[in-house]
């Protein structure tokens, strides 16, 4: 079991709690099987999903129940939908990684749109969803469900706001350079967040990105998140759009030389920094300095013997800038 220590025997109280929950679940399931959409049945199912959000069939029951309300007064639907959103939030706070609960929430939002239930006037729906994402990410900044929820909700709401995502990732990265999730979402939205035709703005962006990365490298040279992002940047930050791959930045040799210099400075301070050495190999090869790259690979095999096979392959593919 994830993170439960051996020797913590399940107590008899815990087993009896699970047993009664399971019994309650069975009764709720009967309501589903018999298509019993009465108030009592609905309340029972609600109680069970709150504490057992993996029970996907009962979430299905709730969707069947919600759909049965079609045609009722708009005010009632707004209330029911908002109650249901609250139910999923409550369940998510208890079980932040329950697929079925996140999915139910996405369904509620999509269905509200289809059924023209106007939740937005009362709650500012899209903003409310982002607030939930933000709340969940405060509890666990790497919760990939919460990050993906933003994506899914943006699609439903038709709100594509790359600049806003870029800004949010900046806050997250500044708080913790090891937040790979934030670096990732930055990579997805960076190209769309700025006017690509503006050369000065692009140059400035590249400088800012490199400055931030440098801070990350000096804070913790062993944290790999920033290094992966850096490699992507050095590659020109390729991104996929409208069926083809384009590079956001036009990376010149002059820039690479500067980066190599900065990389070497870090190596002088931290001679065993694997990530700096690996980056040095990449930069040397980009600049056609193969012999020096080979020496650095030998060093890498010594300090990182676990990936010997990878380095051997790297050494044998000299023409490729891996």
């Amino acid at each position: 079991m994830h993170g439960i220590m051996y020797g913590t025997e399940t107590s008899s109280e815990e087993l009896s709690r699970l047993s009664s929950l399971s019994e309650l679940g069975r009764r709720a399931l009967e309501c589903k099987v018999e298509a019993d959409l009465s108030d009592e049945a609905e309340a029972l199912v609600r109680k069970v999903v709150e504490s057992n959000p993996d029970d996907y069939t009962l979430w299905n029951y709730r969707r069947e129940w919600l759909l049965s309300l079609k045609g009722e007064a708009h005010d009632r639907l707004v209330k029911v939908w908002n109650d249901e959103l609250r139910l999923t939030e409550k369940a998510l706070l208890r079980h932040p990684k329950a697929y079925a609960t996140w999915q139910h929430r996405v369904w509620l939002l999509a269905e509200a749109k289809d059924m023209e239930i106007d939740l937005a006037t009362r709650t500012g729906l899209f903003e409310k969803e982002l607030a939930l994402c933000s709340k969940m990410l405060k509890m666990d900044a790497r919760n990939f469900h919460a990050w993906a929820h933003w994506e899914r909700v943006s699609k439903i709401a038709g709100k594509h706001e790359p600049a806003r995502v870029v800004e949010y990732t900046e806050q997250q990265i500044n708080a913790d350079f090891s937040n790979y999730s934030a670096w990732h979402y930055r990579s997805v939205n960076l190209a769309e967040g700025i006017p690509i035709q503006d050369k000065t703005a692009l140059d400035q962006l590249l400088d800012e990105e490199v400055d931030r990365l440098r801070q990350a490298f000096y804070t913790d040279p062993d944290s790999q998140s920033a290094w992966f992002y850096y490699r992507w940047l050095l590659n020109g930050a390729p991104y996929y759009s409208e069926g083809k791959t384009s590079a956001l930045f036009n990376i010149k040799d002059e820039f690479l030389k500067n980066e190599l210099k900065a990389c070497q400075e870090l190596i002088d301070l931290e001679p065993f920094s694997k990530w700096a050495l690996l980056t040095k190999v990449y930069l040397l090869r980009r600049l056609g300095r193969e012999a020096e790259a080979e020496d650095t690979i030998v060093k890498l095999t010594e300090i990182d013997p676990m990936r010997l096979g990878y380095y051997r392959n790297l050494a044998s593919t000299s023409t490729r800038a891996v």
Partner: protein
Amino acid sequence: MSTEGDHEEESKAVGPLTAALHREHIKQLYEKKESFEMYMLEHRKISGVYWALASLQIMDCLDDLPKEEIVEWVFKTYDKDSGGFGANEQLDPQLLSTLSAVQILAIYNELDRLDIEKVVEYIKSMQNEDGSFSGDQWGEVDTRFSYGALLCLKIMNRLEDVDVDKAIDYVLRCRNFDGGFGCIPGAESHAGQIFCCVGALALTKSLDRIDVDLLGWWLSERQLPCGGFNGRPDKKEDVCYSWWVLSSMAMLGKIDWIDREKLTEFILQCQSPDGGIADRPGDIPDVFHTFFGLGALSLMDFPDLKRIDPKYALVTEVVELIEM
């Protein structure tokens, strides 16, 4: 790194594979009326049964559990109307439960008992316009379902019944800056998701469409000093990633880019004194981690284990029958 720590690391005794205890753990789980693990599996029991049987088969002791009883139970989860299987009796049909059911029947060489036309129809009905697959009739989309659908069809030898080109296009749209894959386009790379996407590409012979060196490198960086793998950068190790990362690397032909000896040691350290494998050393075991631990050991040719095929997650002798 302190020298003291290094010594401690070296002196950690790594025991042998305690296969007999793992068999016992699985048997207990099957026979015992009440346990924490049993409750945890209520809503994904059919996957639990698959993990248990696949584990037993890797250890060459499939007969430990009663075949006929299990096959009959599998059909109790079948929904005749849709052609899908649920995660347990009376639970609604789902794509991933259907995959587990089909895998169980493949393990037992009982695929003939399936109404293949009906199951194919169910899977077909899950494919969306953009090539993606939903997990059930309620429309959740995720690359896990792309893999589940394609593998299910491949086992039944009916891949051509869905739009494979579109399915692969969708998977490729989920590729990221690091060469990995997420659950939907734009979502972060994650080793479990990568396993699904690489599996989907491998099953359809489409691996030439991705940068295998970039992805292989990212995957090799999942191995931590303890020997175990994490699923994303700057996260903790967990035995389940031993399977997801290593099987992906095996499909990409990059298995020698990591330290197999250290990974083996890590998995063996996660064995529980009472049988079963846990997520990390010292935690309580479960059948999910037991399967993923054994699967990874099998990929590394651990002695006395049957060889598993990374893209099917079934032992090779079962795959040979399927592909015959």
